[in-house]
């Protein structure tokens, strides 16, 4: 009989449903097949013209009905698709979920397509006066809702019958992990016995790409797109902007067992620590990332020796991978050289607000399938980063525990510790 309470007397939180969408496809089956065969979803951008752009590749999700309808619609569809898969797998009523919703999604803005169409719908005056005047004559709410930060979650709450005021959050590239953490914490506090945590990001617009480009954050290896994302390689030159979604149904182990649900994994611990060093750079000594990893281990009641695999943040930027290596080697010591550490982003790119949730989904599958997805494009190792990155080919291995890292712009770091079985 598994313990229903953890080392701190809190309810143990199980995962009973997983859903995922990335540039590799819709659903766990397709994603897992591609991920474990080392296939890349990175491809040339076709959604908008690439004239004048230094980066012309991405991991956009181009195959959904909303893929060309703007960030808000695509983010909703990504979230809905992943959540539907997760809730179905959990065997719960997908119209009456009955627990709270935590959504990690990108900040919203009026899409340029709408801005252009509003502006050019008349010729009087100009600039923002014209936009405001045209706006107040609109007789439907479609465009308005794309500009409200709570609207995607509101629609999801309607669609899935979640309970209460849904929380939409952003901790930049750590958002997906934070959504999971909020769900775990709500269950541990006894506020609910299940929660739906989603990370979704369909915001790879031209402007988003240009903004990251201007910060020199993106890879410009355009010629062979599938080779551009190369975490931990010497010639890594930035991340690849991508879209996707991950959803988890979280449940107290007690409630899940009581209804006979299949336990897909355990969310053992969550840890976070903010960085006060710089808006885009991490503290050189990696102390916030180290503290986040240690906080997750402490929350899980595990020692560093108990972690068997690290699902790295591994963005393929010069800065992140160096800092992540420093943090891991500080926490795990000598052992880090022989411990598998791989980056899903080598294949799917950086799904930003979704990344923590997508990678938690893949971490759970790694344990269930006993297969570690590789870090692809590892042809030219960075000699300063000595890690077993599971280079280029998947590895069969029993994995009972995973640490998944998420480190965000703005210094928001969140780490998750997951386990295959309850203890």
């Amino acid at each position, binding site marked *: 009989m598994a313990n229903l309470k953890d080392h701190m007397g809190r309810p143990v939180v199980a995962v009973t449903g997983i859903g995922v969408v990335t540039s590799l496809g819709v659903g766990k089956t397709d994603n897992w097949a591609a991920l474990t065969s080392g296939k890349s979803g990175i491809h040339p951008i076709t959604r908008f013209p690439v004239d004048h752009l230094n980066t012309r590749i991405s991991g956009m999700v181009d195959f959904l009905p909303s893929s060309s309808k703007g960030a808000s619609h695509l983010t909703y569809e990504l979230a809905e698709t992943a959540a539907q898969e997760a809730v179905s797998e959990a065997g719960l009523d997908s119209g009456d979920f009955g627990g709270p919703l935590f959504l990690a999604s990108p900040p919203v803005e009026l899409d340029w397509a709408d801005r252009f169409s509003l*502006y050019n719908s008349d010729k009087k005056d100009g*600039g923002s006066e014209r936009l405001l005047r045209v*706006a*107040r004559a609109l007789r439907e709410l479609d*465009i308005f809702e794309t*500009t409200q930060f*709570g609207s995607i979650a509101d629609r999801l709450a309607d669609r899935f019958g979640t309970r209460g*005021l849904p929380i939409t959050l952003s901790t930049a590239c750590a958002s997906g992990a934070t959504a999971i953490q909020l769900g775990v914490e709500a269950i541990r506090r006894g506020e609910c016995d299940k929660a739906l945590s989603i990370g979704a990001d369909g915001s790879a617009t031209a402007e988003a790409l*240009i903004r990251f480009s201007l910060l020199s954050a993106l890879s410009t290896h355009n010629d062979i797109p599938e080779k551009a994302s190369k975490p931990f390689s010497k010639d890594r030159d930035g991340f690849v902007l991508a879209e996707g979604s991950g959803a988890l149904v979280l449940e107290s182990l007690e409630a899940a067992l009581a209804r006979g649900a299949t336990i897909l994994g355990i969310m053992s611990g969550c840890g976070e620590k903010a960085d006060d060093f710089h808006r885009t750079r991490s503290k050189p000594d990696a102390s916030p990332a180290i503290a986040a990893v240690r906080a997750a281990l402490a929350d899980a009641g595990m020692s560093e020796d108990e972690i068997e695999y690290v699902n790295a943040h591994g963005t393929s930027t010069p800065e992140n991978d160096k800092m992540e290596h420093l943090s891991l080697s500080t926490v795990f010591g000598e052992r880090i050289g022989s411990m598998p550490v791989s980056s899903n982003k080598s294949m799917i790119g950086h799904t930003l607000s979704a990344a923590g949730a997508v990678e938690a989904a893949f971490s759970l599958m790694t344990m269930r399938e006993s297969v570690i997805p590789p870090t692809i494009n590892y042809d030219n190792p960075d000699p300063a980063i000595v890690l077993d990155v599971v280079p280029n080919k998947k590895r069969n291995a029993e994995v009972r525990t995973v640490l998944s890292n998420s480190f965000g712009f703005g210094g*928001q770091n969140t780490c998750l510790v997951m386990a295959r079985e309850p203890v």
Partner: protein
Amino acid sequence: MNSHDVVITGIGLVSSLGEGPDAHWQKLTQPGFQPVLDAERFAPYTIHPLPEIDWNLQIAKRGDQRQMETWQRLGTYAAGLALDDAGIKGNDELSTTMDMVVAAGGGERDEAVDAAILAASESRNDRDVLLNEKLTTELRPTLFLAQLSNLLAGNISIVHKVTGSSRTFMGEEGAGVSAVETAAARIRSGQSTHVLVGGAFQTEHSDMLLGYELAGYLHRGPWKPVWQRQGGEGGGVVTGSGGAFLVLEQREHAKSRGRRIYAELGPIVSGRARRRLSELDAEIVALLKQAELPAGELLTISGASGAHAATAAEKAALDANPALAVRGFSTLTGHMKEAQFPFAVALAAMAIDRKAGYPVFDATAEKPFDGAPKTVLATAIGYHQFEGMGLIKAA
């Protein structure tokens, strides 16, 4: 009384009325006080503008100030006021163990760049190419971060060294409600000992007005108090720039470091009415019931926005209880979106701390309240979606 009770030990406020609890108290308790308005800059819309602020007082480095647009600066400033007020600013041990939940929207786009692109779009059919051409050459590289939602919290970490944890909630007034609710739940469960929570809104930017006006929510024509805009021209919302941050603390933690306690945070309740299905009236009534209002006269700090449907629903529900003496503070500050609920909680806590209510902000719609409030209700019914309220009590 419980050692894990949530108490308020710091308040940071900025609005058109000034900055800090004292300035706000003085103005808000002046009978017949007239709001600070600007009806010219964004005509036909009236706004409540920011007061003059010396940013250096809370953001010492010019370099930091340059990395933020006004909204982030405003939030970072208000957060600094709250930290100062709670005696946490500059205390490394307290700052690095402090959790943070910020309610944020988005920041300010470059209006000149946008206007130039829109003007050029009139004579170009290849608008997507135009966009690439202009954005790659004219966007200031650091603007992205200066307007990014989670970077208000990021800047608070950088400037004030609050680094225990950092979360940003999005979703208009509801984000402010959830931020306070989540922070309180963390403290009650023993997960946090002290949390910085709040938000800011800077309305003096056309996109911030556009965010309301795409659904016709803004009031036009002559300014009126928040309760008197039904049937007026436009949608009823008059916006204001401002920010509100609170330091919430475990009672035991506050006592052990000998801090002054403004008030205790009682139950915070929230909900999501499906307004298309006309659930709002019933939802507000249900929340009032859940909040477990005490018997007797109750000062009520309402965050009503003026938006016609939501404000009418809130007013009807509050009027139905003759014990409630309602103060719609948006009459004097304007609607501050994500900051609305933290602002309401702050005004409620100040009334308890100073053992006095506020005079009516609108004599035609509000009734007097005499005596020292022991409990105050604070509400934030979203102009478009999401609802919340909470009770603030004498500590």
